[in-house]
């Protein structure tokens, strides 16, 4: 126990890294839930429209009539649940660079390959595993035609 605490004290950056759930990429997807459970679509919607948490609408437009000022740097989220499986959506959110190294989609659930991360954000993923699952659960409900 003492040894474990010492280890944490020496490398605090590893605390979060250890907290990140392991996941397996199969083809272009992460088929299994990061938490082992299905996320909550209602919470997922709240994260998607929150400009400090999900940040999605800074770049994406989507079927959110109450939301003003949606971005247009990235594809419309309408119908995203028919275009992609939950596993494909999960990998896009976790680390879209695995699908396209040139993507501007932020990597939401990884600490790898990032430079000059701000002091307040170091060793933290953008979203927690639970939040990623909530967002995946919500996006799969977006089955409208854009």
């Amino acid at each position, binding site marked *: 126990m003492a040894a474990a605490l010492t280890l944490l004290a020496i490398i605090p950056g590893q605390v979060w890294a250890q907290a990140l759930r392991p996941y397996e990429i199969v083809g272009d997807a992460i088929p299994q839930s990061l938490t082992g459970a299905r996320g909550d679509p209602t919470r997922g919607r709240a994260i998607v429209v929150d*400009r400090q948490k999900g940040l999605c609408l800074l770049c994406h437009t989507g079927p959110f009539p109450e939301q003003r000022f949606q971005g*247009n740097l990235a594809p419309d989220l309408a119908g995203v649940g028919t275009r992609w499986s939950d596993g494909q959506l999960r990998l896009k959110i976790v680390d879209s660079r695995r699908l396209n190294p040139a993507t501007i989609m932020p990597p939401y659930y990884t600490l790898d390959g990032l430079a000059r991360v701000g002091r307040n954000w170091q060793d933290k993923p953008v979203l927690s595993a639970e939040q990623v699952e909530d967002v995946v659960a919500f996006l799969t409900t977006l089955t409208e035609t854009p």
Partner: protein
Amino acid sequence: MRRALTGVVLAAGFGGALGLCISLALAQSPPSEHKSGFEFISPESQATQQDDFSNPGMLWVAEGEALWSAQAGASGRSCAGCHGDAAVSMKGVAARYPVYFAESGQPIDLQSRINVCRKVNQKAAPFPLESRELLALSAFIGKQSRGMPITTGEDKRLEPFRARGQELYEQRQGQLNFSCANCHDDNWGKRLASSVIPQSHPTGYPLYRLEWQSMGSLQRRLRNCMVGVRAEPYPYGSQEYVELELFLMTRAKGMPLETPAVRP
């Protein structure tokens, strides 16, 4: 004055919403057609910039003019005491900054150059970076070159620093993993939430930003983007900012200087 205030208030209402969305920052190609940030702002903000009686930046220019003539430091000298009429001596100066500064063997920006003059020639304490006084003097000196084409980067000794600035511009950073070029080269003209992403030509600094309700330097603007992508901003006065400014100003060569510009 009523018209001026209306313009500012209208622009502030629009700009306030823009301000919520801090610009996020891979580089493929530089913009083939250079467009000043002026072309991306509302007609109200454009009118505010173009009317000296409405442009809030002119308050800083006026303060800078007073400082130009004020004696300072142990020398008892004013800027005017050595440089004379700024309309003559400073014409075109801001349009070529940052310049190579032989004493340090590095590029130097206008604000730091003013401070060197204060320290060495006026024997006065340097103004803090981003202070009202330093922004005022920079705005006053900048205005002497308003409308003149940017000529930065002609000194060959600047090249390695310009190249370093380009690397910084194209380097991804922060938790959100954006480079400056990701947005300002590859996606200019699109909307980041409510904000139209401009190209990245620093043609009007120091400038008045409605989001700030104040004048600010390019360094302040660069810090905004770094915070937006959740990167650790460099401290004010860092060499990285000077290199970024050098890269951007060199790229903007030929564009007219707009100081003091107005932006949302």
